[in-house]
């Protein structure tokens, strides 16, 4: 049914960074049978992968991200990072949320510095790191501003810097561009690709835009709801930066759309 290859084991399967192995998550529902947010999901993410998860609401995308981040625990199954079970959230997995999750009581600089300060990085090293990452997102001059003074796109860039300054091995993103306008979104997508290439960390990105998934990802994970599950994993073998006006790009869009429709 699928034009693109569907695989259980992705590239770099020799030593995947993240391994989600037969994971199910149940949520209690009052007065009824519990509901399956995820049922029997397996997935692995290689150290250089940019995995995008697409699917309609209720397919468990965010649940999957929260599992890997360590915010919730699986009811059944195991999630491993570098062959070790994940016990909770930690600075080796940076998270960028869909809503503005910057601390409104801290300036841009203090937001970015939050992680290094928490981990006890010495002050001079901290200052160097923060300057480097503000430079990387082109917001050096906004360091002393508070989040309420920034546009939506700028806030999300700060959120990226705040997560990346910890040098995580995996960057988790939960629809980070959902709340910004279309023009800002496309420039943020370009910047994200550059950041990912620069940082060389694995990425797991949730979206419900097929175009966004194909534009960003090395792999697209197609999910479907009731119960939440992974239907297929589609490789996107296109060079970066990607051009939306090419035949292979459009074909991959159709492939992902087809995969979504056949399971919806």
């Amino acid at each position, binding site marked *: 049914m699928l034009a693109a290859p569907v695989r259980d084991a992705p590239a770099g399967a020799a030593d995947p960074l993240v391994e989600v192995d037969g994971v199910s998550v149940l949520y209690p529902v009052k007065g009824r049978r519990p509901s399956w947010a995820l049922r029997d999901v397996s997935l692995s993410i290689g150290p250089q992968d940019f995995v995008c998860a697409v699917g309609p609401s209720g397919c468990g995308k965010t649940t999957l991200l929260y599992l890997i981040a*360590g915010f919730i625990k699986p009811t059944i199954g195991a999630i491993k990072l570098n062959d070790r079970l994940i016990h909770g959230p930690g*600075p080796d997995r940076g*998270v960028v949320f869909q*809503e503005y*999750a910057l601390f*409104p009581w801290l300036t841009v600089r203090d937001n970015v510095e939050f992680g290094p300060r*928490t981990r006890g990085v010495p002050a001079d090293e901290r200052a160097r790191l923060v300057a480097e990452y503000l430079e990387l997102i082109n917001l050096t001059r906004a360091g002393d501003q508070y989040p309420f003074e920034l546009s939506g796109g700028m806030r999300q860039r700060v959120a990226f810097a705040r997560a990346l300054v910890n040098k995580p091995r995996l960057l988790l993103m939960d629809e980070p561009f959902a709340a910004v306008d279309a023009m800002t979104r496309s420039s943020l997508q370009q910047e994200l690709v550059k950041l990912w290439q620069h940082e060389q960390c694995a990425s797991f990105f949730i979206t419900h835009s097929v175009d966004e998934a194909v534009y960003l990802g090395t792999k697209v994970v197609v999910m479907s709801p009731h119960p939440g599950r992974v239907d297929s994993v589609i490789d996107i073998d296109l060079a970066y930066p990607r051009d939306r006006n090419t035949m292979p790009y459009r074909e991959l869009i159709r492939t992902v759309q087809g995969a979504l429709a056949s399971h919806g």
Partner: protein
Amino acid sequence: MAKVEQLQLPKQAMERSRIGQARAVVVGEATPAERDATPASARATVSSTMDETEIARVEEAFARTQRRISQKNATRQIVLNVVGVAIFLAIWEILPRSISGLNLLLFPPPSGIVDALRDLLSSGDLLWDAAASIARALGGFAVGGVLGILVGLLTARVAPLRFMSDPVLHGFRSIPAIALVPLAVVWFGIGEMSKIALITWGTFFPVWINTYLGARDVNPAFIRSAQSLGVGSASLLVRVILPGALPLILAGLRQSLAIALVVMVAAELVGASVGLGQLIASAQQIFRIDHMFVGLLALGAIGFALDHLFVLVAHHLFPWYGRT
């Protein structure tokens, strides 16, 4: 009125800017293909219909008009404020005198109160009383506020503590502080101890309940962000929960500041050697209604000033407060 205030631009400039706008619309609606067909020279004219000096002149005229309008509005507001106060004072001055048989000692007009105010100020009594009252109110407020924040944070984030303290705290919360005045007098006498204790009691609960709500409902994205940035649970409380709850904590503190004054007066009315409540109570015994008014006036002024000071300090310390 507003129409007269409108911009007075040179007619020429107005017309030119209208032409510029019209062209800009045409270009904006053009499809990419059409735009490509438009010669570059034609497109360039859109931005060059006004030259630099003309742009500067229009901007300056605009800024001048805006300044004049806002100055005028500010002046009018102050004038109306003063007029309102003057009318109120005039009615108050005239009314007691115009009702025949009314004892001016029982219903003193503003002029009588000004005399009393001058007496009490020059004797130093008023300042002494006010200082004592403010010290009590702020002392109790500080103790009640700090306790309220601590207990609020702990009961919001430590589940066993919350369940153990819930019935007791909510039960006590329903008792008005003023009802405890007689008990406080029995336990602590009529000295400073009983007054501070009463004000602490009255100010604790609004701070506690607001801190509790604020800390319980901190945006989960803040907490998750902090955890994925490596924060531990103790540090989470101080660095995320506390500032995240701050908007509600400040609301609770502000409410408590007003309550501190109420409880302070209630405690002083029962018995005190110095204080604005004592000033009012003793004025009643010697029938100096004008002194009572001075006391009320001072209480009003102190409440107003403390509230404004609170808001000022809050915005100074937390520039992000109230902004999104």
